[in-house]
Structure formats: structure tokens, C-alpha cells
């Protein structure tokens, strides 16, 4: 499912000139990257544009789709929401000439803005035959994510009580305002586990509580902010300023669940 941010312009169809011939992809690379610091405020589309340009600046032989408005073959599974940082975002690149993984990593990092940082690049085995691999096989099974949520101005003990209350409930209905209107979700059903991290106390920061949670990728998606909304609304905590969320890992639920039970 190669997805691109480019739009197809209606005026681009032509009577007398054909599209440029495209060169076939011979290598597929999976890129794991982070969204850090100020770049957590980038949207999914912003990150996609940065990669399209970064791939060009890095001089990577990216494959293009056929047609009158060719776009680079970069595919993205769901990205972390705007304002949310991440250490575990993924995309895949289709290349027309084989590249060394470490080289790609280094060249992309030189081309991308600081804060959109490539962590590693791995070749997708068995996909070099030309056919575009599907999302499921490209990225493994991205069934769930592990998140860290910093709640400023919340006592860790109070957060512990709220988490216990949340986990004890059968459902946690919340509303989120989206561009399409108010969306109603059950935040509880998607949460596989959640606990208060000892990290805040360990670093001597008593002014905040740090939550860790593993949340299933559901449709419609339940975001960590929805869980925080439920904790605030029903379980009695009140952060002094907006929470700061970071995705720590993404993968099959079996791999993530149970990982953090302390």
C-alpha cells in the first residue's frame, strides 16, 4: 500500500505526452525513526513531506510510481499524532538500486531536520523480486504500542490510584473532538496494561507522574490522550499543563504485553 502525500492534479492528464518511464524497485528498506524534541509537533503529513525531500537530498535512488504525477514510493503505517513524540515510527522505501543499510541511515540523517532521526534501516528480505510487499509483511505486525505519558503536576500516588480505578472498570467512554466532529470511544477496551513508572521519583522530579501503557491499535484508534481524558474525567487526576506523550515501541501485542509489568 504505497501511500504518498502528493495529490493528483486534474489538469495533469495529457493528450500527447506520456509519463516518464519508471524504473523498477529492486530493494525494499524498512526505516525505524524517531520524532523527538520540537519535531513532536509535526503532523503525520509534515513528516511525510520531510522524508520525501530528505530522500531526494540524500540522493537515494527512490522508485517512483507510474502515471502523470509520479510520486516517490514511500509507505507509511499510521504515524504518532501531532504533539506526540516517538522512538518507534516506521516507513518503507522502495529503491531502484541496492544500497547499504548503514549508508542509507547516515545519509538520511544528514538530510532530515534534527528531531526526525533515523534509528535503523533494515532490508526487507524476500521482497526484492519487484512486487510491492503489503503493509502487514513490511512492518511485521504493528498491533499495539507502548507509550510513556508524563503528567505534569500530578502526584505519582494519585496517579496510581487513578490507574487502578481505570483498570478495574469494564469500560471508559470518552469523547474526542476531531475535524469530523465529536467521536465517542471506549478507552478501556484498548488498554492491555498500564502502570505508574518509578522514573519520576528516580530522577527526583516529584512534580509529575509518568505512566506507561500498552494500547492496542484499534479502529477507531484509541490514543494515549483518550486514556488520559478518561483518567482525568472519571478517575480524578488533574495535570497542571498538557501531558507529554512518547511512543516507545510498536509491534505484535504478544511482544509488548507483559514487557513492562513491574
Amino acid at each position: 500500500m504505497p501511500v504518498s502525500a502528493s495529490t493528483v492534479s486534474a489538469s495533469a492528464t495529457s493528450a500527447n505526452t506520456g509519463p516518464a518511464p519508471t524504473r523498477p524497485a529492486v530493494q525494499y528498506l524498512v526505516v525505524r525513526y524517531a520524532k523527538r524534541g520540537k519535531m513532536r509537533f509535526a503532523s503525520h503529513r509534515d513528516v511525510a513531506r520531510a522524508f520525501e525531500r530528505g530522500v531526494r537530498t540524500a540522493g537515494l535512488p527512490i522508485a517512483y510510481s507510474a502515471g502523470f504525477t509520479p510520486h516517490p514510493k514511500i509507505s507509511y503505517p499510521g504515524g504518532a499524532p501531532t504533539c506526540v513524540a516517538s522512538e518507534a515510527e516506521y516507513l518503507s522505501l522502495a529503491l531502484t538500486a541496492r544500497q547499504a543499510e548503514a549508508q542509507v541511515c547516515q545519509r538520511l540523517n544528514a538530510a532530515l531536520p534534527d528531531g526526525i532521526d533515523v534509528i535503523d534501516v533494515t532490508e526487507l528480505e524476500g521482497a526484492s523480486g519487484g512486487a510491492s510487499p503489503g503493509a502487514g509483511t513490511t512492518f511485521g505486525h504493528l498491533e499495539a504500542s507502548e507509550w510513556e505519558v508524563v503528567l505534569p503536576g500530578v502526584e505519582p500516588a494519585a496517579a496510581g490510584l487513578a490507574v487502578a480505578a481505570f483498570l478495574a472498570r469494564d469500560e471508559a467512554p470518552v469523547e474526542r473532538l476531531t475535524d469530523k466532529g465529536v467521536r465517542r470511544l471506549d478507552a478501556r477496551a484498548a488498554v492491555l496494561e498500564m502502570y505508574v513508572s518509578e522514573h519520576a521519583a528516580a530522577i527526583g522530579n516529584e512534580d509529575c507522574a509518568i505512566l506507561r501503557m500498552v494500547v492496542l491499535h484499534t479502529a477507531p484508534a484509541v490514543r494515549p490522550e483518550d486514556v488520559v481524558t478518561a483518567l482525568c474525567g472519571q478517575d480524578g487526576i488533574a495535570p497542571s499543563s498538557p501531558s507529554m506523550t512518547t511512543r516507545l515501541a510498536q509491534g505484535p501485542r504478544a511482544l509488548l504485553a507483559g514487557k513492562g509489568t513491574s
Partner: protein
Amino acid sequence: MPAESVYPDLEPLLPRVRKPIQYVGGEVGSVVKDWDGADVRWALCYPDAYEVGLPNQGVQILYEVLNERDGVLAERTYTVWPDLEALMREHGVPQFTVDSHRPVGAFDVLGLSFATEMAYTNLLTVLDLAGIPLSSSERAGSHPLVIAGGHAAFNPEPVADFLDAVVLGDGEQAVLAITDVIRDWKRAGRPGGRDGLLLRLSGIVYVPRFYDVTYHADGRISNITPNRPGVSPTVSKHTVMDLDAWPYPRKPIVPVAETVHERYSVEIFRGCTRGCRFCQAGMITRPVRERSIGTIGSMVAEGVAASGFSEVGLLSLSSADHSEINEIAVDLADCYEGTNVGLSLPSTRVDAFNITLANELSRNGRRSGLTFAPEGGSERMRKVINKMVTEEDLIRTVTTAYASGWRQVKLYFMCGLPTETDADVMAIAQLARKVIAAGREATGRRDIRCTVSIGGFVPKPHTPFQWAAQCPAEVVDARLRALGGALRADRGYGKSIGYRYHDGQPGLIEGLLSRGDRRVGAVILAAWRDGARFDGWSEYFSFERWQRCADEALAGEPVDLAWYTTRERDYSEVLPWDHLDAGLDRDWLWQDWQDSIAPEGAGEVEDCRWTPCYECGVCPAMGTEIQVGPTGERLDGRRLLPVVGGR
């Protein structure tokens, strides 16, 4: 003022605003220099939203020119949207730069670029959030020097009270000269304080407070005179000669946020002498100075490689007029063949477009939009404005475009031009019909379209129409309605013709701000206090607000909104910008105005690039000359193409 980053205070506000990425900086191409290592520090502001301001060429050029110098630092700041403005006020966060989030109040200079007068209220927002007193006279030595530039600054009088100084014309050399003066003044222990600095700067810049304006009882200006010794009665514009020596921007700033222009733009020439009488840009940027094909080629090569942009914009006031435009287009298209880099010419004259350009602009199979600006619907109207394109030119050009694969062209017109009648505007409908007929014939298809885009004409300073009466908004609106009705009612062609128009009322306020004098400052202040923000955006603009504020602020004066806009001026009237010299001979402008409205039909002015000099006055006054090719050079693809590694 402390210069520490305000980011820790800003960060918690960002999740609560729309598109927070626009406030964080960190773009590829942006620069953060050591604060303490710089002795002159500029905050460069484009007083509109980041998405509009970031691609602005002027700011990007000055940012790079200044940051290249040792000991000089430049950072960028933009107007924040009202959602963030409210939060910043609530939490005491001052106006900040996006590069290192330092408070604007800590810089030596706040330089603002005004492309449009509609950004004047945004100036007040920026000043106020920065903690800088709105009135220049209330500022202390510790406040940044507030300097404006850009096309709108050629009549800065409506905002004169809010500015310390104004740069007329090209900024590249001027900002460096200003920097040197500020450095020397600081090293000398700031002799004379703020006024001492402004005195040293006067001549390089216009300092409004060094001039007094007096008025006749009927409201007209009586005199504009310097009020202290050593200050020249007139101030001249700056002109950069030899654009090849100033090849900026070299390292474009590549936004992470989405902006209005996503491309690497290179200015292929500056200035225009086509002589369109409505066009302020064409009058104040004379003479034409071309950048050579060789420099354009290396700028494109470097700019594309550094930015990763996939579109190259060849900018100028009329790009197809470059003496080697065909060679530039052919060679760049050759160089980038197969790389998915596309070319665009944002400003193309109907009579200069040709089949070569059509082919090269669409070489990769992609076509950027094609817009032509006949401006006037009838031949008579086009003669009045000296836009000498004929109906045959237009039909031939659109036929070329349709035959080359474009399915849609956009045609831009103005309404409310001097001497215009209803019939002149209705002629646009006839013209659009002929365009569609020609397109259908050329392609044998019925799915070709054209869009008619039309806005009200606003007379601008330093043009032959600076004396003209602006057409009342009701008349503009009535003509626009009638035209829309005629286009829609057309059975054979109506569905193929799109129609976009701008209401007359915002144009009237633009007219007030364009040709206003210092008394208009009170109107701007009143409108801003009443909540005016982002007046260039229709969703924010309120005519009712401006009309009310103009009535109130001008209540004690013998002038009003209509006096500034729909009143024709005569030769003897002192215009608010008469002391600001763009080089144009006032008598030449007046004669051109008279020629345009001559009852026997308008006189024509040719382009001095191809015909003898007609003595507009600019070159002798400014010591400049036309600089055009051809150079005979060609571009070499092997040199231009970015090296693709690993193949």
C-alpha cells in the same frame, strides 16, 4: 531584556493551538548562531502567518546575507495566529523568534518586510507581544530599532508613527550598511542614544520622525520638511546592480510545516519596464536587471540539492521576458529529465509565452497551473492601463497551452480601472467565451476549462494612477455581479468557465492604507485595538470595523475614508510619499497618467529594453542602467545534476 529562550514557557501552550509545528523552527536551512558571539542581532519579521511568510524571498535573502557575516546574527519571527496570541497574553510569553525562541525585544533590530498594506495591524500585534511601545516616540534605548522594508514601505506614512526607520528598495546592501552603522554606534558607547543612531542612519534609511508634515485647512498636505539639520529633504531607494554578485537564497529554508509555496525559487531578474500603469512593482523596481543563465543554473543546482524540493520556480515580475528564458527552460528541463523535478513560471505574460516554454514546463508530464493576466476585458481598457496584449495574442497563447496538454488556464482581470465602464467588464465574458471556443477547436475536446479571476483595482503610490479616483466598492461589486451573471447564463460555455472574484470592500481599505498619510495611523491603531488581525484573510477582515474606526479616528479631521480613496488628486497636490524617491520623474508619471485617460484614446508606452529610453527618470536619478543578456551561455547537465550515490 533577557535573551533566554522562551521555549520552556511556550511548549506547554503548543498542544492547545492549531498547527503547532509552525512555531518551533528547526527547518533544514535554518541557522542558529551564538548569541554572545554576535554584536549586531536582527529579528526578521514577515508580518503574516508562517505559512505565508516562510517562502518569502525577501526574508530568506536577508536572513542568509546577514547570517553569512561574522559577528552578525539574524533570526526569523512571524505573526502568531489569534489562538496562540491569546495564550501568550494569558501566560506572559513574549513575541519570539522561531530559530532559537529568543524574545524579539532582546534584539538590536526588528526588520519587517511588507509585501502588502493589509499586514499593518499584524505589525502592531508583533510590537505589542514583543513588549515594544507601539509609538516610535515612546521607545527607549533598550528597545529594538523597528525598521520596515518591502514594496508597501514605499509609502510608509500610515505606519510612520510605529516605525523608527524605513528602507526603500533592494535590501541586500542596505541591511549590511545599517549593520555597520549600528555596530559602530554601539562600540562608540551609543552616542546620542536612539536619536543619535537614527541620525547616523538617515540617508541610508528614511526616518519618519525627522520630517514634519503640515496640512491645509481642507485636509491636503501643505509641506513635508526635515525638522533637523543634516537630514535630506528626500530619501532615495536602494538598487542592487549585478544580481550575479548576490546569488541568494543559496540555502533555502525548507519548512516542516505546509506553506503556500513548496518550491525552490530563484529570481531570474528584478525590475520590469513593461510600463503597466497600475503596477507598483513595475514602477518602483526599475531598471530591469537580469541574473545570467549561468548563475541561475548554479543556484538551481545548489538550491535543489540542498532542499530536496521537486519544483523550481523561475521568479520575476514577468518571467517569460528574460532574454534567455527559452535556453533556461530547455537546459534546466534537460538537466532534470527523469528526476521528477518540475519547472514553473509563476508570472507569464500572454504575449511572451511560446511553444518552447509550453513544452519545457510540461516535460516531465506534470503541469503546474498556467495563469495569464490580460487585466482588462476590452482592448480599450488594456490600452488605458498600457497592458499591450491583443485578443489575438491571448487566443494564440491559450491555444498553444491547450494544444500542449493543459486542460485549464486561469485568466486574471481587474475591475474598477480608470475610465472603466460596465461594457469593459462585460467584455471579459466575451473573451472567456472565445478562449473556450479556441481551446475546443485546438483539442477537439469539450473538457477544457478556463477560470476568470477578478479583483478590484487599488491605485498605488509611485504609479501613473497614483492620482486616480478609486472606484467605489458598490460600483465594483455591481460590475462583478453582472459579469458573474453573464458567465453563468451562457448555455454553450458557462459550464466550462469558472469564476472567482474578490469583493470591493477590502479593496477600499487597502486603498486607504496604500495612499494614506500619517493621519491614517490613528485608524490603524483604532482598528487593531478593536480586534483587527490578519486583514489580508477574508475570514478575519471586517469592513464594518474599519469603516467605524475610520469614522471615529478621523472625526476631528477634514478628511475621511472617501477622501483618501475615491477622490481624484490633481497635479499640484503634495502626495504623502512625494519626499520618498523611487527615481521616477513626477512629471513623467503625470504625463503618463494624462496619456492614459486622453479622450482620443490612450497613448502607448513601449518597453525601454527594446526601444529607446522614454525618460521615466529612474536610471539617471539612481545612477543605474538596464542589465540584460543574452550571454550566449548554455547550462551543462553534468554540472547541474545532483550526484546520486550508490548507483
